């Protein structure tokens, strides 16, 4: 009666159910492809170190080539990609290469799944076109590279991405590429996301650590009450409330629309508050736990002032749960920005994503999704590095 078998059976059962669900949703052949992709990515954890070096470097070379092709000819791009990848295979630790071996195929899988889902959604980029004669539609499909089946589109998209480093033409915006379209929006969205993340972390840590140092005090109940509010109120309520108070009543900040970076404050706070609340709770429990450790008593027995006991000996430990949450928090803040950008009329990536989805502009949707996914992947990598620095016990592969 070992629990391992029961768990194994569970996993197999769940896997089969997932596969059946997928087959029903996207058709059996795509479902099988998807399952194979997932299995391959999962298999990376079992690859031996040597293989990880080869696979990771090869994937890195492919990615670098695609990126390089955005501005270079095939020859120099290939040289650059191979050179950097060879160096990476030599120098990077296996753990980092293993991450790459996970992350890059995951991004490809993301493109695949997004494509399938977009094709499942009713309508297509050419459905609303006034002149909808079949011949014209075929010509348009050929021109923009949008075949009738999802898997075929995926093939066209990936080929274009890998060989030309291009995100393709925007289907609904005449004569412009997805890259040209998104480029001006990127810094705005990045600034918004970064500002929101900074506000969330700073506010959350401040409230959480204060509360954790004196559990059951007034400061504790106060900040945790605030945190409950922050977590339970939806974005648009917080946003509207902030607009009313700070823009309409006090007139300190612009209401909405775009006219410079001062316009980012309200949306950033709106985005940040729920995450600040969550981080506050994590920081509080982290602080409470670390303050009960024996080494805190040692620090006091050395004669350290309480300030150093907290800021030096307790802080790193209290940060650990917060840092593990930063990956999901960043993902949440970025996706949350779709709603908030729309709410505040900020011309960022979120607007293109929403427009793209409404117009069934497949290339625009994939471009934004890929951009956000890459950003989140890179961010998670940084979080991992930070984690290793905070906790030297976190074992790393050589």
């Amino acid at each position: 009666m070992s629990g391992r078998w029961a768990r194994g059976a569970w996993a197999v059962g769940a896997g089969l159910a997932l596969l059946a669900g997928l087959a029903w949703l996207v058709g059996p052949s795509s479902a099988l492809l998807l399952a194979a992709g997932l299995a391959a990515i999962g298999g990376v954890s079992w690859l031996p170190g040597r293989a990880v070096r080869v696979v990771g470097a090869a994937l890195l070379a492919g990615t670098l080539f695609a990126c390089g092709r955005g501005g270079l000819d095939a020859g120099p791009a290939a040289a650059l990609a191979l050179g950097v990848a060879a160096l990476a295979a030599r120098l990077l630790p296996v753990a980092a290469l293993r991450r790459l071996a996970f992350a890059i195929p995951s991004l490809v899988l993301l493109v695949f799944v997004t494509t399938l889902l977009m094709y499942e959604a009713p309508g297509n980029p050419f459905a609303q076109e006034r002149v909808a004669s079949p011949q014209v539609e075929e010509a348009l499909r050929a021109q923009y590279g949008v075949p009738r089946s999802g898997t075929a589109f995926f093939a066209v998209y990936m080929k274009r991405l890998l060989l030309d480093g291009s995100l393709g033409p925007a289907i609904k915006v005449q004569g412009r590429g997805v890259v040209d379209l998104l480029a001006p929006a990127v810094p705005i969205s990045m600034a918004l996301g970064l500002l929101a993340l900074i506000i969330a972390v700073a506010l959350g840590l401040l409230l959480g650590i204060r509360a954790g140092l004196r559990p059951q005090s007034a400061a504790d109940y106060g900040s945790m009450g605030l945190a409950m509010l922050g977590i339970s109120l939806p974005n648009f309520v917080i946003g509207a409330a902030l607009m009313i108070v700070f823009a309409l009543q006090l007139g300190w900040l612009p209401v909405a629309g775009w006219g410079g970076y001062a316009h980012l404050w309200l949306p950033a706070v709106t985005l940040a508050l729920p995450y600040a609340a969550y981080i506050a709770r994590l920081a509080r429990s982290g602080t409470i736990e670390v303050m009960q450790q024996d080494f805190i008593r040692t620090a006091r027995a050395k004669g350290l002032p309480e300030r150093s006991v907290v800021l030096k000996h307790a802080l790193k430990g209290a940060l650990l749960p917060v840092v593990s949450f930063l990956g999901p928090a960043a993902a949440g803040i970025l996706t949350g920005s779709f709603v908030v950008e729309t709410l505040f009329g900020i011309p960022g990536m979120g607007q293109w994503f929403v427009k793209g989805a409404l117009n069934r502009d497949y290339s625009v949707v994939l471009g934004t999704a890929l951009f956000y996914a890459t950003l989140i992947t890179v961010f998670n990598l940084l979080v991992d590095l930070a984690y290793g620095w905070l906790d030297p016990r976190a074992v790393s592969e050589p």
Partner: protein
Amino acid sequence: MGGAAGALLEVRDLHVSFDTEAGAVPAVRGVDLRVQRGETLAVVGESGCGKSVTALAILRLLDPSGRIERGAVRFDGQDLLGLSEPEMRALRGRRIGMVFQEPMTSLNPVFTVGDQIGEVLAIHRGLGKRERRAEAIRLLEKVGIPAAAERVDQYPHEMSGGMKQRVMIAIAIACEPEVLIADEPTTALDVTVQAQILDLLRALQQEMRMAIVLITHNLGVVAQFAQRVLVMYAGKIVERSDVATLFREPLHPYTRALLRALPSRSAHAERLVSIAGTVPSPLEYPPGCAFCARCPDVLPRCADDEPRLEGVEAGHAVACWLHAGTGAR
């Protein structure tokens, strides 16, 4: 016993209790102790009798729920309980060092041992970064850690338990304290390492002429190490004596039971002492002698009447009705 005026560290009538959901836990109920310069005082007793709480109360490091309800702590003529927090901090780690029971968890896992030794050197001796490192290496060598120049940059998880306890000792002696409080410094370690750590403490004591308060539940350690002994039971001192007298002529039935439970073969010397019956919970100490329920020689009055610690001969005192009024006082 030496005159009270000469005592380096003196605790008088210490009462400590903890606020808990079940009520106030009286962990220490009237402890007196005196340590002269350079001597070793052992404090012995079963788990839970209040040894650690006494030690932490001396340094004022009790948990927030713990309260010193009564008593006095004097160190070199100063009343420690009356000092401000900054004055107290200036003593901790500089004039009074402490080594804790749990070497595995007493070092911060996220800093190198060099950093953790260096901290004391920075606050109490004002050393700069480079000097701290050199001094940390010297201290590591002093506590017998081989390849100290490499070890100094390691994290605690890269070291064994005995090694960590050596690092703890290095931290505690970094400023050559006048008193070292060692709270069961070897309990968590295995037998061979225990002996090494005790040897180290003895060597350091001789070199620096510091007093040691050695907390232990092992009378075998006491015999090798200390000059005087306090036997604690249920938050009180039940017998106080010099070591030779205690082993020759233990008076309190609890002390006798401890001695009987001590295996004579040294191979098992560190086995936990076990005596029939259980220690009463601090929440239900009886009005009389706390040992009466386990005592083989119990008298009718023991359950209701509490015996006081009384001298029976010079330097030997016991709190037991069997011996009440027998001494010269």
